[in-house]
């Protein structure tokens, strides 16, 4: 008959546990996607420690990333604030071990999936680096309480898991910042010249494929030199920022707004025909002219800043290139400047 030694003392199962752990440590370094890593861990956890249901909580910017493992798979969610169980333990930052079922005095209710009928106990493990908590694991023992090796492996895997996810989040943030820096104008936060021209080219190609009209608006701040000369360059920067803000608030979803040059801005509108572009330009004009611009260096009630605009559309000439389209908008803008400023001109062939 069977010599029922504890399975955890049987060599072959020890090897299964080590093998599962080592393979998983390797996998999470090779995988790059938080969801994929979480799912892989969720299906493998039972092989190296006596657990199938767990929750990992990590701070992600001003939010939290909550990864729930259960039934062989994992779900990743972002939440603005933590539930009572997580919030309490996150604040305490202390390892906890609670036998199940919980008594009334325990008060806090763990997440549902940790309270499976098969759960024997729950441990909570905070992971800290340089005194700062970067992750917290709550994990339930499946059918049998945890033994020492379970605890060791859970600590090891939990820490590696949390570290890997934090690293990925940090890298995503850093990449995002680099992309922002490379594509945004530092002063106004709008797309920079290179990016808005790229967008124009790609949107033009799309417009040709879909046979829908694309239009551009080129606009320029009136008498900007006078603002700089009278109130200084810092005041000029304030005006540029405020113009950018107003353009963005009057732009519609899908419009691309960029800083084209010193005080010149380019808006790419798609899909949009010439008549719609003129209406959009008029909206931008009013958005700037309607309210005086309060800037620190200028006396109250503020400066009457206006813009001149030129609109051009690829509506009648779908094969037109980006440079030619901008040139047309520029000629229309020139007409606006020549006919008194603070107005919109649409390009027509006779311009």
């Amino acid at each position: 008959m069977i010599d029922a030694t504890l399975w955890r003392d049987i060599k072959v199962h020890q090897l299964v546990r080590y093998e599962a752990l080592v393979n998983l440590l390797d996998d999470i370094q090779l995988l790059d996607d938080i969801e994929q890593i979480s799912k892989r861990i969720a299906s493998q956890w039972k092989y190296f420690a006596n657990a199938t249901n767990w929750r990992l909580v990590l701070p992600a910017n001003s939010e939290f990333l909550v990864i729930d493992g259960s039934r062989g798979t994992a779900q990743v969610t972002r939440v603005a604030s933590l539930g009572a169980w997580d919030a309490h333990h996150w604040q305490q930052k202390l390892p906890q071990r609670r036998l199940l079922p919980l008594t009334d005095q325990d008060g806090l209710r763990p997440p549902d999936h940790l309270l499976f009928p098969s759960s024997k106990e729950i441990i909570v493990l905070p992971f800290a680096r340089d005194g700062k908590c970067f992750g917290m694991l709550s994990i339930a023992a499946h059918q049998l309480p945890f033994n020492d090796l379970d605890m060791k492996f859970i600590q090891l895997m939990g820490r590696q898991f949390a570290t890997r996810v934090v690293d990925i989040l940090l890298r995503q943030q850093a990449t995002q910042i680099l992309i922002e820096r490379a594509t945004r104008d530092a002063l106004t936060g709008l797309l920079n010249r290179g990016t808005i021209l790229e967008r124009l080219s790609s949107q033009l190609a799309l417009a040709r494929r879909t046979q829908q009209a694309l239009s551009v608006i080129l606009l320029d701040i009136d008498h900007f030199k006078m603002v700089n000369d009278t109130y200084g360059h810092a005041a000029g920067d304030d005006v540029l920022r405020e113009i950018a803000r107003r353009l963005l608030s009057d732009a519609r979803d899908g419009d691309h707004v960029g800083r084209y040059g010193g005080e010149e801005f380019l808006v790419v509108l798609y899909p949009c025909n010439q008549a719609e572009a003129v209406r959009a330009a008029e909206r931008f004009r009013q958005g700037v002219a309607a309210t005086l611009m309060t800037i620190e260096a200028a006396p109250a009630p503020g400066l009457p800043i206006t813009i001149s605009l030129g609109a051009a559309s690829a509506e009648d000439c779908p094969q037109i290139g980006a440079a030619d389209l901008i040139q047309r908008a520029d000629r229309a803008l020139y007409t606006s400047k020549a006919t008194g400023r603070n107005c919109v001109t649409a390009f027509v062939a006779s311009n």
Partner: protein
Amino acid sequence: MQRYLIVEYQDADPATREVYEDFMRTTGATTVPLWLRTLGHSAALARAYWERAKGTLFFGHLPLPLKEMIVFVVSAKNGARYCSACHAQAVLSLDKTLEFSDLQDFLKSDAGQALPPYYRSVVDFATKIVADANAVDDEDFDRLMDDGFSREEICEIIAVIDMATMFNVYTSSLRIDLDPEYQAIL
């Protein structure tokens, strides 16, 4: 009557030899098992059977001893002497005289902790499929998932059950003798 022909390595044609060699390279065995030598007359069949075993047993996420256990359970249920003898006991470090009924009692007893908890649901699942694959219901899947098995792993479990059955039919029909030197292929 011996119901099968045996093609030894030295007599095999180059294509069959390639299969034999792939077997030895993959498993680390220095000899070719009897079941594979009985397929040696057809390189295509030998390759088909071997690839089925290789793809099912040597890839995927289930630990090998768990796959061994599935093969043992299915083979024992199917009364396949050759297959059940080759699998499980040695790898699981259990008593060599273990019978299938003992195993069932053992898995069901509360004192039995000789195997990780997830074995019980896998063994029950395999037993049920062997009896009648159509009888498997969502609750059976739920039980495996409660034990932490992903859908991919459950698919793997079924593939192992299916492969074991295929080998059971083959070895039982031909009444392949036990291989004295041959252990489990894993």
